[in-house]
């Protein structure tokens, strides 16, 4: 294929600005997908993706387009994940492109992820085609949004395409712009093979399938290929393109996007961002930008019924086949028994995984409050990396602790600056920059501990700004912090799964609110249950759940007996959803209560 007739592009947008609908419309207009096969969000194949309107896995589709200049072009649409949890995957997908369509909702204007995605695309040297979506809506303000794009993003917007992904208006203009504005890929066909792996998935029959963009050289079936970062070698079983069904081709050459079937059975051998080359006479240098994906957020997953542990393990094994970022190791809790400490890219990733485990594998799980990875410097000189409060060493042995910080970018209308500042201060965030992107949008940059961001920071931000604020963040680095471990004791016994690590200035307030919150959540038992928050042996706060004194339905005559039994069964079912810790019955939500203590 002559690279002059190839265009590789991606669509980037803030969530809900219409990215998936636009992709659907492009596929439909170009006849890539027959009308009868059309479902909404074609590229989002998981139920959760469709329900939540988010993209989790990358996708690539080859579109044949007969342009106005009389030539037929191969347009490769690379669909990227749409959430900040998956920023690295997004960056690799963008690196496979020469251009990007920046979708901005013309009724809402530039949002935090618009800024973040646009700057990622600019860093990847992509040609950006701004597209103002939803212009069919009465609230559409194309002129104003154009101004925001030019002022806030420094992207010329006078030629921005006015479109409605819903009605199909402007799609032809967009396709022409893709052909005319986005440069054709450039590469050396005679150089050794260099292909960028921008995603991979596991096929039960064919093993690991890599999605690749060929930069130099070419790849074809039967060659022995290698992944440069992992050193994995394999025989290429098949190469092809997705239209969107897998369609084998003889070879993939310069500029082309397609799939490579590796036959490998271990997904961890094929990593996003790695460079694929030939095992013999391979490239000397890999493509830039590869890094190991590291989980940021950790939580314990425990089956409510202990005998579901093997099923949980199998389910995690299965999910991780298609999710290289999902890491887990066995964790044993006194309170919750055997489970796993699972690492995630972020909170959304965690929610998605939990939901899939429960839905697709029919597991009942307790998730403990998420935590981050701390670096604990011991007086002995040793450094521990811990991601569970359970592994927190004795306070006296600790020299100091560092916790991960993010640089968060918050976009809000000026009216809400004060509200954001209050919230940020409460969450130990320090402002590093603030600027007006336009008269209606202020960008506030904060350095914030990740541990604070996962305390439902985004939900609170949304509610305090009436939904106007948008948030994006990037990893900043580790910084020293005065942290301590707070334990929760039920009936005098510490419950490991309720412990958490907290800044010392907040220990008292959080401990105090948490025990009160737990008092609301934990039902009365047959005996009084004291709930205490303690740091080491020092009790910060204590409340008592009074003993249940009465629970009896006194009337029980002939016709009442079966009703009465049903009531007992209902009570039992209620208890089943609880976890017995010692002899105290605790509802599941208690383990997440720590997230709610700031309300």
């Amino acid at each position, binding site marked *: 294929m002559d690279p002059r007739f190839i265009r590789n592009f991606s669509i980037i947008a803030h969530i809900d600005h219409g990215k998936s609908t636009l992709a659907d419309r492009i596929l439909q207009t170009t006849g890539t997908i027959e009308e009868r096969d059309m479902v909404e969000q074609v590229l989002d194949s998981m139920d959760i993706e469709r329900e939540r309107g988010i993209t989790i896995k990358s996708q690539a589709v080859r579109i044949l387009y007969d342009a106005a200049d009389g030539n037929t072009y191969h347009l490769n649409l690379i669909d990227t994940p749409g959430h900040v949890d998956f920023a690295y995957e997004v960056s690799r997908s963008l690196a496979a492109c020469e251009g990007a369509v920046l979708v901005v909702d013309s009724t809402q204007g530039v949002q935090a992820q618009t800024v973040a995605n646009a700057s990622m695309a600019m860093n990847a040297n992509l040609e950006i085609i701004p597209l103002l979506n939803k212009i069919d809506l009465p609230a559409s303000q194309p002129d104003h949004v154009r101004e925001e794009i030019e002022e806030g993003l420094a992207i010329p917007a006078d030629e921005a395409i006015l479109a409605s992904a819903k009605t199909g208006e402007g799609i032809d203009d967009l396709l022409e712009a893709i052909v005319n504005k986005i440069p054709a890929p450039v590469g050396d066909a005679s150089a050794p093979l260099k292909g960028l792996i921008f995603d991979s998935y596991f096929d039960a029959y064919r093993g690991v399938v890599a999605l690749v963009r060929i930069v130099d050289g070419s790849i074809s079936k039967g060659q022995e290929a290698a992944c440069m970062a992992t050193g994995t070698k394999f025989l290429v079983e098949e190469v092809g393109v997705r239209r969107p069904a897998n369609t084998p081709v003889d070879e993939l050459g310069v500029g082309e996007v397609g799939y490579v079937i590796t036959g490998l059975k271990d997904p961890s051998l094929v990593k996003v961002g790695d460079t694929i080359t030939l095992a013999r006479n391979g490239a000397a240098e890999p493509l830039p930008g590869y890094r190991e994906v590291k989980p940021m957020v950790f939580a314990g997953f425990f089956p409510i019924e202990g005998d579901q542990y093997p099923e949980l393990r199998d389910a995690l094994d299965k999910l991780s086949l298609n999710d290289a970022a999902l890491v887990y190791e066995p964790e044993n809790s006194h309170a919750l028994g055997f489970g796993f400490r699972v690492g995630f890219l972020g909170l959304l990733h965690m929610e998605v995984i939990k939901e899939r485990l429960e839905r697709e594998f029919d597991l009942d799980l307790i998730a403990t409050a998420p935590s981050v990875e701390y670096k604990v410097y011991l007086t002995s000189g040793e450094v521990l990396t811990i991601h569970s409060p359970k592994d927190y060493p004795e306070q006296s042995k600790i020299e100091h602790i560092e916790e991960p910080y993010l640089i968060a970018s918050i976009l809000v209308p000026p009216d809400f600056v004060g509200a954001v500042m209050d919230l940020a201060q409460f969450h130990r965030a320090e402002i590093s920059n603030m600027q007006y992107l336009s008269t209606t949008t202020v960008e506030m940059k904060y350095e914030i501990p990740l541990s604070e961001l996962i305390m439902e920071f985004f939900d609170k931000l949304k509610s305090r700004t009436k939904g106007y604020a948008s948030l994006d963040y990037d990893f900043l680095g580790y910084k020293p912090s005065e942290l301590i471990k707070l334990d929760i004791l039920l009936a005098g016994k510490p419950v490991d799964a309720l412990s958490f690590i907290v800044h010392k200035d907040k220990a008292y307030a959080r401990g105090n609110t948490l025990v009160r919150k737990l008092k609301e959540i934990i039902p009365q038992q*047959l005996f009084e249950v004291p709930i205490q928050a303690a740091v080491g042996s020092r009790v910060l706060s204590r409340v008592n759940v*009074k003993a*249940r*004194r*009465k*629970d*009896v*339905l*006194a*009337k*029980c*005559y*002939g*016709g009442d*007996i*079966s009703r*009465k*039994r049903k*009531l*007992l*069964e209902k*009570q*039992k079912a209620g208890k089943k959803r609880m976890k017995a810790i010692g002899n105290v019955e605790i509802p599941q939500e208690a383990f997440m209560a720590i997230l709610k203590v700031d309300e």
Partner: protein
Amino acid sequence: MSAMSRLFSALYLHIPFCVKRCAYCDFATEAVPRGSERIDDFVERMVISIRRAAKAGLLSGLETIYIGGGTPTHIGLSKLSEILYILSLSKDIDASMEVTMEANPESLTEQIVKDARALGVNRLSIGVQSLDDGVLETLGRAHGSKRAIEAIQLATSCLDNVSADVICGVMGQSDESLVSTIEQLVGLGVTHVSVYPLTIEEGTPLCAIIEAGQLPEVDEDAQARHMELAAKTLQAHGFTRYEVASYALPGRESRHNSAYWTGKPYLGLGYGAASMLDSYDLGALLESGALDCWAESIDFEGLQERAAGSHRTRISLARGGLEAEFLSERESACEDAMLGLRMSRGLPESALSRLTDACPELAAAIDEALTKGLAQLNGDGSVSPTAKGWLLGNELYGLVWDCAR
């Protein structure tokens, strides 16, 4: 026609009519004006139903009869007499039987008491609930304390066995109010008292009032205190608690209710009534035609098929049709254990060994109840509820019923 292997020892007639629905009531009853055609229709069915049961020999083993509701007295003297008369024709009612009728103060007249007595009723159970007008108003009862006192006087002057129902733990009900109600009742000569803590049932007016914030929620601590206070007060007057909610002077325990709690077969007629029998005997009940008056079309074969292999059958009659449940031997044993532990005498040693034979897990459940202080092991080998077991009954019954599954 097949005969029953174990005869019904108790007969329950449910009269599902009241002058009004009380604010807390979710019972099988409806408010209809006296003289309504619905009552005529109902009584006609009841008469036929009793006759059919008698003809099939289902009534020959009866030891007790209970006419409950609803408010039996609400249907009026002539209708009540009709039912009682048919009963007396169908079964030789002698003084050795316990024949109870429920009554509410607003519709209890001297004439009714006398006629009922003449037709064999020897025990009245009166829905007094409280002698505190404030409490009666909260409950939405149709009577005041004055009328209640008159009704009890009427009853005790004609009959030597009179029971009163009392509700405790009502919002705004003081300890003194409860004690005063009980002491007045004892003073008026009642021989049996049932004390129920108020339960707020979904869908009742009282539930809506509480949800609207016009009345506070039920205070479980106050209910516990009231239950203990009632026990103490009644015991001081010579009453013995023989069941979680039932107190009686010596020899005045309700034999009918005891039948429910000791696994004896009972026959229930009328919308809202339930029957319990050995599954083996279901054919005899169905063949009698006694239930045909209450359900449009009974799937004779379907029921027989479902009953096959089960140990115990319970049939509930409702306006919507007939509901049946079938218990295995194991489930029956657990049900008996649950009901036995509602009574002061608890489970005698002989019953324990029979029940644990049928369901071996019961032994561990009873051990757990002992450990948790919900039950106690007595010198004669029986197991009975403790003070804690009375108040936290659902814990205790739940433990044993769990063994069924």
